[in-house]
């Protein structure tokens, strides 16, 4: 794992992995959504609104997986000073927040015909909204720590601690439908078994794969952008220092 901590090695891999993940992800997610809309059957109880599941569930999974990645990367940065871990955590925050927001919006659109309301303050919906606020807080903290101009290496220590502490919300989201009464259905897919029929499950799993690849591609692109920004800043700073040293000699 430490072998990938070398930015040069990371860039060699990311150069071909970024477009591959994005293109494959777009193709697979597009095919899965078309499968869900045009081929998969309507649900006996929910009718056609069940088709929203092929978008809602992958974005929910990525919102939670995104924060789990931030927590793991923050841990790696605090404990091992992994040079790429902080950059990875910063890169995950924006796509994580975007997919969490899409999950909340599609869930709300699904809730109106299914439950008769756009929103309820129950455990699952509220903890997912808290996750969106955590992402916003993390990004604001990161931006404030580096003066809002993206300067500096990795992520700030304060943001790394925030990333670790915020992970407490992930099991709360997962178990919220078990712990508290909720309009939201309990987990349909658990380790090794599924309450969903194959006609719904397969396009859903393919959509999860496609969106995960898109997420991975976006994170790689963000990491490359952050690394390039830091390298350009460092080079310009060195050049400015050299120029001022030359002036001093005169």
């Amino acid at each position, binding site marked *: 794992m430490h072998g990938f901590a070398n930015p040069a090695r990371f860039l060699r891999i990311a150069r071909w992995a970024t477009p591959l993940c994005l293109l494959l992800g777009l193709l697979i997610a597009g095919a899965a959504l078309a499968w869900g809309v045009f081929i998969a059957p309507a649900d006996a109880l929910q009718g056609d609104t069940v088709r*929203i599941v092929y*978008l809602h569930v992958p974005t929910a999974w990525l919102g939670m997986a995104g924060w789990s990645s931030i927590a793991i990367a923050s841990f790696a940065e605090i404990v091992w000073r992994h040079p790429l871990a902080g950059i990875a955590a910063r890169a995950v925050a924006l796509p994580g927040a*975007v997919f969490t927001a*899409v999950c909340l919006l599609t869930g709300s659109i699904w809730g109106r015909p299914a439950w008769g309301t756009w929103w309820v303050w129950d455990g699952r919906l509220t903890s997912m909204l808290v996750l969106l606020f955590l992402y916003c807080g993390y990004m604001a903290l990161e931006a404030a720590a580096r003066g809002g101009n993206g300067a500096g290496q990795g992520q700030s220590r304060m943001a790394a601690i925030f990333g670790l502490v915020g992970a407490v919300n992930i099991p709360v989201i997962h178990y919220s439908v078990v712990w508290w009464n909720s309009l939201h259905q309990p987990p349909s897919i658990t380790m090794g078994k599924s309450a969903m029929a194959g006609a719904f499950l397969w396009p859903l799993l393919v959509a999860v794969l496609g969106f995960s690849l898109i997420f991975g591609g976006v994170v790689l692109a963000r990491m490359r952008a952050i690394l390039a*920004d830091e390298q*350009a800043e460092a080079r310009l700073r060195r050049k400015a220092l050299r120029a001022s040293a030359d002036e001093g000699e005169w």
Partner: protein
Amino acid sequence: MTETFDQWQFVIAAYAIGGGVTLGLVAWSWLSMRRAERRRDRARES
């Protein structure tokens, strides 16, 4: 009083938001990466 829904309107709205935002995110992240790498290359050359 009962409400009747055209379920497809909700499906289309969800897909328009989800698809649009995802495509926008992919395009923005790719373009910002290319811009940052061009800036780094310019700094390297000058």
